[in-house]
């Protein structure tokens, strides 16, 4: 008896995901389904994952041209918007200056977050002091939104004598406990599960602090993404799990990471963790949904996973050349626009901002960045020094330097 109801194929074949377009082709985002702003409902904070499964396929959007619409529109006031806009402009100014500095040889490497500014900035404004973020290398906005001293950031980029990380780390791998910015490692995914552990600790201690983990859509493929979600799903600690889907992981489009089969918000459905998909270029949506997740966490309702839809406008890093693998004009075709433009237009329409104010702010913040850069240069640059000393390399491997390191330091004669 063969009750086979479907025919086997002659020869099996491997499915290998491929983006619709490559260099030379016309950009095409027609397959990206972008729902109307304002349509996504705002569920109660104590909803279950099952209750909001649909929100992982939709897109929470608030900005509709010049208006803020829908159930999520009430979460963000204009003051927060202005604060956010300023921070985003500053992030942009900072990125531009550091890219230039890298081209000028003042440092070895840089990574910008062009096009993704709203996400880190918006979320940080929704958090409280004492909360801890476990960022990737594209969340400089977490620091800048809190007015972290630019000078310190730049000294880290320059690995100079004033670098608080003492030259040990690759540029952009900042650390600031004080500002709730966990030391960046450079290994993908590892810190997502550490965020869960940190949040578990807060819950164990009976504290009220929450954690926020960050990961790129490409890195959700890493094993530690699973570790994070398993532990979050079991212990339900106060953590926000952010997936920044900027469509690309170096040269790999999001389909290589699984995006052909699911949205990255849907990954959470395998773990019973409530999740939403959000327009990451819409500051109001970012702030509102971050706030919602933050409130869930702080009310002991457990983890939330958020997929932020955005686009990596720039190259992956200063070592990358995206024209090798995607159409040059693709970022302009990205249907969700640019976060700074969109927020600016909204604020202007609300009468809280103007073109002049904008230009003036841009100029002012560029100047602030430039001043900080100049100041930083007086403490040295990577190519020119002064640099942290060789002794700095031996220190801090352990709290107290063990004998074998002392011997090695001696051998180097430093």
């Amino acid at each position, binding site marked *: 008896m063969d009750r086979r109801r479907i025919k086997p194929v002659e020869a099996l074949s491997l499915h290998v995901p491929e983006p619709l377009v490559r260099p030379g082709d016309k950009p095409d985002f027609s397959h990206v389904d972008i729902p109307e702003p304002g349509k996504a409902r705002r569920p109660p904070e104590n909803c279950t994952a099952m209750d909001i499964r649909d929100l992982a396929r939709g897109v929470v959007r608030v900005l509709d041209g010049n208006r803020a619409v829908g159930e999520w529109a009430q979460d963000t006031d204009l003051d927060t918007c202005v604060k956010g806009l300023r921070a985003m402009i500053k992030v942009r100014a900072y990125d531009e200056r550091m890219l230039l500095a890298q081209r000028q040889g003042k440092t070895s490497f840089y990574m910008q977050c062009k096009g993704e500014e709203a996400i880190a900035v918006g979320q940080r404004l929704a958090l409280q002091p004492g909360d*801890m973020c*476990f960022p990737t290398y594209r969340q400089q906005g977490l620091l800048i939104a809190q007015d972290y001293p630019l000078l310190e950031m730049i000294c880290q980029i320059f690995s100079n004598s004033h670098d*608080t*990380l*003492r030259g*040990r*780390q690759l540029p952009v*791998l900042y*650390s*600031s*406990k004080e500002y709730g910015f*966990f*030391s960046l*490692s450079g*290994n993908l995914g*590892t*810190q997502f*599960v*550490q*965020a*869960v*552990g*940190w*949040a*578990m*600790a*807060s*819950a*164990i*201690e009976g504290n009220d602090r929450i*954690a926020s983990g960050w990961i790129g859509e490409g890195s959700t493929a890493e*094993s*530690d993404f*699973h*570790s*994070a979600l*398993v*532990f979050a799903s*079991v212990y339900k600690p106060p953590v926000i799990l952010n997936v920044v889907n900027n469509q690309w992981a170096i040269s790999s489009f999001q389909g290589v990471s699984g995006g052909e089969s699911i949205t990255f918000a849907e990954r959470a459905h395998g773990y019973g963790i409530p999740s939403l998909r959000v327009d990451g270029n819409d500051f109001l949506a970012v702030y509102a949904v971050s706030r919602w997740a933050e409130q869930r966490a702080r009310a002991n309702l457990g983890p939330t996973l958020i997929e932020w839809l955005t686009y990596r406008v720039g190259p992956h890093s200063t070592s990358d050349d995206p024209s090798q693998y995607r159409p040059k004009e693709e970022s302009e075709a990205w249907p969700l626009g640019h976060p700074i433009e969109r927020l600016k237009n909204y604020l202007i329409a609300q009468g809280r901002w103007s073109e002049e104010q904008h230009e003036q702010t841009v100029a002012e913040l560029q100047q602030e960045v430039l001043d900080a850069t100049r100041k930083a240069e007086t403490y040295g640059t990577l190519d020119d020094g002064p640099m942290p000393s060789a002794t700095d390399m031996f220190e*801090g*491997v*352990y*709290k107290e330097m*063990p*004998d*074998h390191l002392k011997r090695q330091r001696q051998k180097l004669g430093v």
Partner: protein
Amino acid sequence: MARMNMIEAIRDAMDTAMGVDKRVVVFGEDVGYYGGVFRCTQGLQKKYGKSRVFDTPINESGIIGVAIGMAAYGLRPVAEIQFADYVYPGYDQIVSEAARLRHRSAGDFSAPLVVRMPCGGGIHGGQTHSQSPEALFTHVAGLKTVIPSNPSDAKGMLIAAIEDDDPVIYFEPKRLYNGPFDGHHDQPLTSWRNHPLGEVPDGHHRVALGEAALRSEGDDITLLVYGTLVHVALAAVRELGIAADVLDLRSLIPLDLEAIVRSVKKTGRCVIAHEATLTSGFGAELSALVQEHCFWHLEAPIERVTGWDTPYPHAQEWYYFPGPERLKKAIRHVLDATPAKQS
């Protein structure tokens, strides 16, 4: 002082640490209600509650990952890996994260955690319940790696590890849990009951990490050992009727190089033994250090007696294990070595 086997001593260490410091939390696979497959955490959940002693999902990377997050927060996590053979999925978190956190953040963050794991063979556990991967941790800057050889040290070193501000990899030679196994697998196991180091100090007992202990003293030769091999070495020395320094290293990183050099300069001969695979085992580092620091005092080549460069086999366990016969042969060989006998 109380008489304890090594399991009880380890449990007592965690109990003591948890009692005085609320930040200490203990978790791992099966460690909560059940108290661990080797029962090292038995009773702790009942005593300290489910938030401080709990079962984890079976995910070693996650166990270490959350431990790092907790340690960075300010807790003192003690994570159990059920067998050292299963630590590899968590190796990235240990190497790339725990070990480097303090350095890369210039002290802004640190990861004062302890990873406990039973290691070593001799229980017919085959290739996945017998391994001794200590060398893999000693190659990683930022980690401390320690291996006690008896109940008293087990307690004192575990307390020291928990109190240490750096990440500590703490190996438990499982063949020693119930007695000072000396490699004579065909003889009945003696228990800790009659062993002086089965006497474990009460309360807050601390054995500093980085200090070796001389378990026997003599001028003929120096034996560098740790864990189970301490007892094998003592048996070999006894059976040969020689006078040897048997140095129980206890802590591999930091290493008590001074004690090693002092002894080898005295004896001029050295045998190193461990259960791990030979090539690139910690014995290689010890051998390199000894010849670097004692070259002009050496009267014979240093020999290594170790597990072979094969997976740990099930049936051939006692051919794999570096037991007293193999050790004695090597000792004799080193004692007899003269330039004339060179190959």
